[in-house]
């Protein structure tokens, strides 16, 4: 590797940017059908000591002989020793991870990518909009807000899933609410036993009256969902540069070399995955982009 790898995000806490560090699975928490949260601890205590991450960053998780997958960190940035990743089975790597139990070893390199601009949002009202597994990269933001609640105005979480059983982290909602955070939950489909909301996430905006001068929107979920979240936010005059999305593309190197995650003029592994809407507007609705 050449010297450019020593700069900025190319110097992950795990050491050399292309060399995974072994981490032991200390706990596996089933979250929903095909979704588990893995708590990891680095085998090398020095790596664990040095490891820090910001809300929204991701790690490359590696299984020898199978491959790597970019997985968002879903835990509290203030507790980097309890490193958690919420994984949905979507391909070979995540399928293999899903078969692992506590005591298993995974290679980890990272953290990579930029982060949700929680500092820029200080003093603002926050609308956090998540769909499905999209709540995972937003949960570190929520933990940050819980720890710094006085730094933000009104905080609203709009969270959706396909079915009630697919909702992530439902056991934490009451704690979030106890910190003066409004948590609104909806599902796409439900039977008669579900007493909550039914409908897609973007329509939850209908009941909001955000002050556009002091509102920041963070959203992550299926891209088509985020299209409509952006639409609803813009309809309420939230500025484009205060609507942030976490985008997902297949990643390979995670150090801005291979170009696999190129998105217009940006590499999502380096410039993203969190981008403001004003930066991606020209490409966001382009098919196959």
């Amino acid at each position, binding site marked *: 590797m050449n010297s450019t790898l020593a700069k900025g995000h190319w110097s992950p806490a795990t050491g050399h940017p292309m060399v995974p560090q072994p981490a032991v699975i200390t706990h596996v928490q089933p979250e929903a059908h095909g979704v588990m949260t893995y708590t990891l601890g680095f085998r090398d205590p020095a790596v664990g000591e040095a490891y820090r991450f910001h809300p929204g960053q991701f790690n490359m998780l590696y299984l020898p002989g199978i491959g790597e997958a*970019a997985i968002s960190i879903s835990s509290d940035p203030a507790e980097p020793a309890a490193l958690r990743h919420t994984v949905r089975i979507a391909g070979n*790597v995540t399928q293999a991870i899903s078969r692992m139990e506590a005591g298993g070893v995974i290679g980890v390199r990272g953290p990579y990518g930029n982060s949700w601009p929680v500092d820029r949002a200080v003093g603002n009202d926050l609308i956090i909009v998540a769909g499905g597994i999209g709540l995972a990269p937003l949960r570190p933001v929520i933990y940050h807000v819980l720890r710094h609640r006085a730094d933000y105005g009104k905080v609203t979480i709009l969270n959706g899933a396909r079915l009630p059983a697919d909702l992530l982290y439902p056991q934490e909602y009451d704690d979030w609410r106890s910190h003066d955070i409004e948590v609104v939950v909806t599902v*796409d489909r439900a039977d*008669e036993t579900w007493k*909550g909301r*039914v409908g*897609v996430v973007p329509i939850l905006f209908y*009941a909001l009256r955000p002050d556009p001068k002091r509102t920041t929107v963070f959203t992550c979920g299926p891209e088509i969902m985020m299209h409509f979240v952006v639409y609803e936010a813009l309809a309420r005059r939230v500025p484009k540069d205060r609507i942030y999305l976490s985008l997902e593309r297949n990643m390979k190197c995670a150090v801005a070399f291979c170009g696999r995650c190129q998105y217009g003029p940006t590499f999502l592994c380096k410039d993203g995955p969190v981008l403001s809407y004003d930066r991606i507007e020209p490409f966001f609705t382009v098919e196959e982009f």
Partner: protein
Amino acid sequence: MEPRSLAEVLRSAQLFWGLEPQHLEKLAAIASEVTWTEGQVIFREGEADDRLYLVVEGLVALEMYIPNRGRATILTAGPHEVFGWSAAVPVVGKKTASARSLQRTRAIAIDAGALCAACEQDHHLGYYVYRTLADVIASRLTATRLQLLDVYAVGKGE
């Protein structure tokens, strides 16, 4: 609830923000407050209920009955949301879904026949009301499309 209070509640809903005071008063004059207990059926699919509703507090499920499968909730309406729009669209003429309160719910009921008449008499009001209803129906269409897309389905993985 007094008509003036009804007008204030209507104005607090996002849908009626832009309505002028005299028009709000016209709507309030043909509106009344209704309350349902949890689990109460408000109207049934196919009925000719002649009111549309603005939820003030609580939650209402809009349901359709599927033979051999039972009732399915297709959407819920919470505070500041309208349901029962079909009462004000004569070509539809009957409720397109059943409505049931999921919790104690308070709403403003607007007499659809009187609303149509008021809109005929005052085209400015009519334009605003039907533009608002078009927004409601368009949002339902968009929401339904997203539900049909099944956006949470797992796609191609890593």
